[in-house]
């Protein structure tokens, strides 16, 4: 048994620790995106950052030892994510057949990401009235966030959006990233 896990087991009881590790694994698996300590804590009913970090660390180590296709990694801002090891991605990528979004909502999302913070009126102006439905769907999926400011609604993308497309959480940096990738992409092919 791993030293860290052993230390935890001695302190909290083996069965309890195994259950908590499994719950953290369950949360990371189901979310498919980075989760912060608070969210992980809410799953195991704990507010002790130290304890949550220790448990997640132990799980990370366990995954390392298993040496399989999945890994749990810690991001800079104390968030953890379960993911497929990069080396396996090319072989199985084609099995992902369901898009996150259909074309219409994806267009609306891309426009918001590029122009954010952007007023709902402008989005509807550019994307048409059917975009009201897109906005609802995007909000439900946790990709955008709408805030009422005065008489208008202002829309921004969420952290989940940034995580999904591996973009920065900082809006300015994200827009620069998008512009630079977009610039490269928009160049005519040689």
């Amino acid at each position, binding site marked *: 048994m791993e030293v860290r896990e052993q230390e935890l087991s001695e302190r909290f009881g083996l069965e309890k620790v195994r259950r908590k590790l499994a719950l953290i694994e*369950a949360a990371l*698996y*189901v979310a*498919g995106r980075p989760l912060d300590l608070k969210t992980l804590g809410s799953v195991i009913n704990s507010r002790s950052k130290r304890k949550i970090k220790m448990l997640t660390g132990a799980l990370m180590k366990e995954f390392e030892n298993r040496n399989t296709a999945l890994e749990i990694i810690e991001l800079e801002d104390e968030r953890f994510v379960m993911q*497929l090891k990069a080396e396996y991605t090319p072989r199985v*990528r084609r*099995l*992902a*057949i*369901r*898009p*996150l*979004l259909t*074309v219409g909502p*994806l*267009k*609306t*999302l*891309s*426009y918001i*990401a*590029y122009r954010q913070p952007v007023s709902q009126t402008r989005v509807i*102006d*550019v*994307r048409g009235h059917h975009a009201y439905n897109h906005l609802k769907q995007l909000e439900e999926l946790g990709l955008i966030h709408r805030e009422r400011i005065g008489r208008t609604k202002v829309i921004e993308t969420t952290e989940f959006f940034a995580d999904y*497309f*591996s*973009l920065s959480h900082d809006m300015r940096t994200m827009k620069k990233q*998008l512009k630079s*990738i*977009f610039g490269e*992409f*928009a160049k005519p092919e040689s």
Partner: protein
Amino acid sequence: MSSTVGKPFYFQPPWNILFELHKLRKVRPWDVNIAFLLTSFVEEMEKRGDVDFRASGVALDSSSLIYLMKSKLLLKLEEPPAPPKPPPDFLPPPLFLPLRYELTSTTIQHLLDALDEVLKGERLPALKPRLEPILPPPPEFLPPIDLYLMEIEKQMEKLYRSLLRFADKERLVVFSKIVAELEKLEAVKTFIVLLFLAQSDKVSLWQEENFSEIYITLCEVQPIGGQGTGII
């Protein structure tokens, strides 16, 4: 029966049921023989030679009430019996869908493709001349606005003069009198000119109720068009 001394006979059983209606709630209406009660009540009263019409009235009233209760019971018997309630069906607990992570196929490349399309669309409306909302065409009875304004002074003067003609000693005119012989459109025009007059304090308008007659009071005797009558 010392306790009943002084009390009329009908407060004793079996007739008391007709005079103490609260007791009716405790008996089954079917157990009350109205015919017997009423007949024996009349016989007893005749026997005693003390005819009390008020008591007879109460007895009749109570009998009809008992009769009504019997009828209601009969009707109730006619109703089909309520079907026995089926035992509530077993409601299994919700089936939670198994949770499976699924890698979705949307990549940043797709996002950028979509963005390219959208930005093209965004430029298009910018190129198109923006359509201003079109005002509905002015009603045909209104001449072009500047012509109308040029003429308004003349119109006001004309109307003021006719008001003077119609006004009584108290300088009061009723609106219906001025427009009595006018076409509908002309009447509307007259009313608008009247509003101009009111706005420049040449007349004051009042009404007792909404949609009732409009009364016009002339504020000055001098006709418009004289000196210092710059209107508007």
